[in-house]
């Protein structure tokens, strides 16, 4: 069996018994969260130019991007903003193309993380834009190391969306040792 550790199974320093209340599934926690906090209508609509991502989701993925993809630190700020913008568009396009069943699950996860008190309990992060790389990595590490499949699933989907959205972009190719489309063929076909 995987080694059990207190660190791996607690969130934001909370012991496991408190964590259990939200570990049984996102749905219950979400119902609870929205009942406590509520959500403004503008926060529930896609950002202008996006089909799926709400304002809070954009903040989350913008904070996750440099934590998942360290390469972003090698770009100057202007370039980094452009690349993160492209990553967000890839993530949005992917989520918009998902079938309803998957969309609902992802939406539950993102809505849950958009509720500040629940976010803090579940991830140890107060505001996404203030978290920084180490705190975001610690959040993902805890979720993926948790004994709760729901959190493992959430951690995996956030990592996968963030990582693939970068490595699907040509800007990633030098950092993956990929020279790009096989040159002789590409040149022949496109000449």
């Amino acid at each position, binding site marked *: 069996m995987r080694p059990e550790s207190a660190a791996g199974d607690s969130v934001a320093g909370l012991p496991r018994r408190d964590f259990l209340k939200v570990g049984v599934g996102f749905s219950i926690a979400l119902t609870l969260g929205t009942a406590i906090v509520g959500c403004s209508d503008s926060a529930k609509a896609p950002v202008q130019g996006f089909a799926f991502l709400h304002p809070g989701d954009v903040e989350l993925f913008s904070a996750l991007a440099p934590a998942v993809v360290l390469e972003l630190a090698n770009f100057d700020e202007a370039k980094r903003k452009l690349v993160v913008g492209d990553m967000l568009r890839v993530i949005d396009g992917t989520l918009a193309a998902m*079938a309803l069943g998957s969309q609902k699950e992802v939406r539950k996860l993102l809505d849950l993380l958009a509720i500040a008190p629940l976010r803090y309990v579940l991830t140890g992060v107060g505001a996404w834009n203030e978290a920084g790389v180490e705190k975001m990595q610690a959040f993902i590490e805890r979720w993926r190391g948790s004994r709760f499949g729901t959190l493992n699933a959430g951690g995996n989907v956030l990592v996968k969306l963030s*990582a693939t959205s*970068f490595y699907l972009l040509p800007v990633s190719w030098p950092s993956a040792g990929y020279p790009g489309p096989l040159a002789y063929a590409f040149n022949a076909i496109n000449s």
Partner: protein
Amino acid sequence: MAIPDIYTEGIASGWKVIDGATLRAPQTLEADVAIIGSGAGGGVAAEILSLAGLKVVLLEEGALRTSASFKDMDELRAMSQLYQEAGARATSDGAIAVLQGRSVGGSTTVNWTSSFRTPPLTLKHWAEQHEVVGHSVDDMKPWFEKMEQRLNVALWEAPNANNHVLKRGCEKLGWEAHAIPRNVKGCWNTGYCGFGCPVNAKQSMLVSTIPVALQNGATLVHRVRVRQLQHANGQVSGATGEALRNDGLTPSGVTLTIKARHFIAAGGAINTPALLLRSGAPDPHERLGRHTLIHPVVLSLAQMPEQIDPFYGAPQSIASDHFQWLNGAAGPMGYKLEVPPIFPGIGAGVLNTFGKALQQEAAALPHTSAVLALLRDGFVEQSPGGRVRLADDGSPMLDYDLSDYVWEGVKRAYLSMVELQFAAGAQRVRTAHVDASYQTSWDAARRQIEALPMQKFRATLFTAHLMGGCAMSQNPKRGVVDSRGRHHQLGNLSVMDGSVFPTSIGANPQLSIFGLTAQNATALGKELRG
């Protein structure tokens, strides 16, 4: 050197191709045969029935994408335009990623060209255990030969470095290994099969059977989602579809009505059961959408001393069946070993790491080789497969759980792959599992695998092969269709795709679908010509 675009030329010469996104008013289409889905099953059926002189309409939910748009050889474009759910399709719990095509040609437009005949033990198992008739090795031989000839299937004898790792490992260990037959003609050996072949060398349905069907008067309608079959008194009376907008996802509000003497469902093992479920097709024995098989795939990653460039060259050319039939068709789970190509995007999904680990592993990609195991599911009771059901909007969801029996197979597959990679000279190896780390010796890796939790979301799981859910059997209590693909309760409905398989195949399934469809569509054509 410009590559001629088959469709630009064909449409100019009068092919009947309708893009649903351009429709502004309701349409009614009439045909002898309406085929829903243009992949391995629908493509072959369209050619055979058109050549038999029948009027065919071929309906495809995805868009028509042709070599003109494959010229960029770009992974992001391919993922977003050629795959179901932009490459993000997954089982309902998100635990297993599903790679499945979604454009004219279906998965044949994006698959890696491996073309195996249905293994003899699989055919024997169907006859003995599932009351399937007419598909013995001898029965199928002429149909496989026909399709192999039609699609130029031949052994590929020049493995790239990635496939050579598998070959070398098997040779060192004395394990069975063989060259893979591929359906290519004039292949440039670039490795871009998964993004749509830019030189029309892959003999997908897109460039082979569908053009012949169109030359013979068939009508192709793409970007149309068939919602329902109407039926009464054991007959399908018509089908209704919704045209999709340019995004290929949202309905435009324009409806299509399709009238035909005979209907063929060929949307693959997720979309075909979903269509029949939405249609309320009779299912007196509760077989519809049940026993869905996926060849669960697990992987192991190796860093090699030599340059691999796992993105270049024919993606699959070597396979090993050493662990596939150790106990015949039943017994502990068998698996086939192959390699996947690794481009940066899909590679990031396989690595499933972040931060420092992702950065280092991505940078090592040119020296990375991966081996995958296709687990042969559905042959014993302990491997019941999954189930297709519907979301609120009628879209499909696939439930798939891994039993202890399957996890035991996963563990053995990990062990085999890692042993093989070290035998082939790997410096460091790790399984694609969240809790695994790189090990530098076979012994250390073996100990790590023994301790890995065999759980969803910890093991990284994929599938690219969807089968079952409309299984064939002569016994209506055991199958949705008979051995010829005819629906047991609806007289003028056939199913011709991977969903008719009573078990998984035990090899990449495209040639199994081609051969079986050729046989069944030929019989259907004769019957309809009467």
